[in-house]
């Protein structure tokens, strides 16, 4: 924020106040679960909740990356388009038959996705840091580029995994489970645990928060602001790639419309989770909670039969606002 005047007269929050902020999203989630139960008792069935959490995986994982970008003081609006772009290239590669052995092909394709994701992230990062373009605009431009390239790759249609055997081999990555725990849920928690470790316990994580909290102080402390931010974008790209890796086996195909508006959902998850858009604060577990909240709101809408189809968007909007109000009220306590 700004260096010229800093308010120290109004007591800044102490670590105690932050605890409430950290808990708030979880309280909102709990309330939502109760609401869901009243909307449709099926809601609390294991099957349904597993479904919901499983499919929140894409947004949740992308939002982890967004937590880094946002807490370092950046923003990335291109992630939805990046999903489409990386997924398309991944499927095209799988269809190319470049690797004969299906298992090996699958692994190579996944590696490729990660490399592509990192490369996209790097591009975004360099444009905002070295190019010094406001992240909002830079990544909006990149959104156009990734989506345009996807349209071109797919020639306006969709890109589908052609090899049946490969698809069968790949399917379990989304539909499979380990001891009853769906793989995407495992991926969510493993990715989040790594993200939390890096953000809270490593030097790089500390630098991310410093850069987002006051760029100048970070610079005067010998931290390379550009490097830290660029790496945050690369992490975002890697998260997108992980999301792609579990997304592709789900629908087995992509098109230029894949991932539309996911960037807004990811940012919403981050903010609902308690991370401030102005940077300097990052809440990994809050973000995961935020992603669950978003998916559950949608699920409740679908399961309840009281709401006209036409009004669903309106009710969703209202629920998000109410969830945020609940949060603020708790935080002020």
């Amino acid at each position, binding site marked *: 924020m700004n260096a010229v005047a800093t308010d120290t007269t109004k007591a800044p929050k102490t670590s105690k106040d932050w605890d409430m902020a950290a808990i708030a999203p979880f309280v909102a989630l709990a309330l939502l679960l109760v609401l869901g139960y009243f909307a449709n008792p099926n809601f609390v*069935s294991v099957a349904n909740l597993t479904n919901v959490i499983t499919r929140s995986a894409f947004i949740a994982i992308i939002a982890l990356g967004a937590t880094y970008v946002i807490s370092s003081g950046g923003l990335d609006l291109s992630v939805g388009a990046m999903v489409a772009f990386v997924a398309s290239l991944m499927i095209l590669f799988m269809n190319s038959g470049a690797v004969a052995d299906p298992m090996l092909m699958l692994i190579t394709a996944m590696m490729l996705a990660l490399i592509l994701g990192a490369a996209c992230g790097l591009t975004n990062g360099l444009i905002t840091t070295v190019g010094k373009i406001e992240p909002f605009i830079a990544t909006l431009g990149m959104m156009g580029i990734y989506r345009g390239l996807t349209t071109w790759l797919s020639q306006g249609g*969709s890109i589908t995994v052609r090899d049946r055997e490969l698809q069968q081999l790949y399917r379990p990555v989304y539909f499979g489970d380990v001891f009853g725990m769906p793989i995407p849920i495992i991926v969510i928690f493993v990715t989040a645990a790594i993200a939390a470790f890096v953000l809270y316990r490593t030097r790089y994580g500390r630098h991310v928060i410093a850069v987002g909290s006051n760029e100048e102080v970070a610079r005067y402390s010998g931290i390379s602001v550009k490097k830290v931010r660029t790496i945050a974008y690369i992490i975002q790209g890697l998260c997108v790639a992980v999301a792609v890796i579990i997304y592709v086996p789900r*629908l087995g195909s*992509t*098109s*230029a419309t894949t991932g539309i508006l996911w960037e807004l959902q990811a940012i919403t998850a981050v903010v609902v989770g308690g991370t401030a858009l102005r940077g300097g604060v990052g809440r990994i577990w809050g973000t995961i909670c935020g992603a669950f909240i978003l998916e559950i709101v949608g699920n409740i809408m679908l399961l309840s039969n009281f709401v006209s189809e036409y009004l669903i968007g309106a009710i969703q909007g209202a629920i998000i606002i109410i969830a945020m109000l609940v949060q603020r009220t708790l935080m002020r306590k």
Partner: protein
Amino acid sequence: QEAKKVTIGVSIPAADHGWTAGVVFHAERVAKLLMTEHPGLNVIVKTSADPASQANAVQDLAVQGIDALVILPTDPDQLVSAIQQVKDDGKFVALVDRAPSVNDNTIRDLYVAGNNPALGEVAGKYIAETTPEAEVVIIRGLPIPIDQQRQDGFDKGIEGSKVKVLDRQYGNWSRDDAFRVMQDYLTKYPKIDVVWCQDDDMAVGVLEAIEQAKRTDIQYVVGGAGSKDMIKRVMDGDKMMPVDVLYPPAMVATAMQLTAGGFYDQVPVSGEYILDATLVTKDNAKEFYFPDSPF
């Protein structure tokens, strides 16, 4: 026996433009109708904005315990897995309109469709026959497969004729985008004979742009899908809108009725019901004019 408990889930795209609004309208209308007809029947209609959320919706319908699924996929290839799961659970599946690359009994029991390639082809043929040397500009929909199918169909329709396609740009099935694209076509091409915009919503924007430019070289516009406004123009003999190509959103209703019939009327239903991409002209327009429809 009439009270036999049956639940049918209907998953359709959100009302994101005129045609899909028509789909929603007909689905909700027929859902009510069927439920009064069969007291034991429960029909749940759910709309979704994109393939990923439609896959969710299908899952959620399955959680609620359905006996049959009627689905008009937003983007068919991306929904194959989701549909397959329902089918593999032994439920009856009726697929409407947009067909995936593999469209056989392994994935659905019933297929009711308008014919996207035919929609393009009928339009192309009409143009090739009416104005064999026409220079045509095309406004496409959104970059999704059905749009590509229509383009391919159109090219097939004009094959062998002297019809020349000057340009093809996306108008995203939006009136505003079509207006903008048409304005720019008018700037770019001093002479345009025919506009094919394959959708009646977009035709609204196209006609406004032409009227504003006061250009007289454009002989006519071909839309598509059969909205009531455009059918009315055809019926009234509007020179700018001599024909329309039918692609009725009511096809979802047909699928729902057939599906319900399977449960209550003991008629075995399966196979394919392809609705023609009928060419609507001044002569037959009356048959397709429904002033009460929202579309």
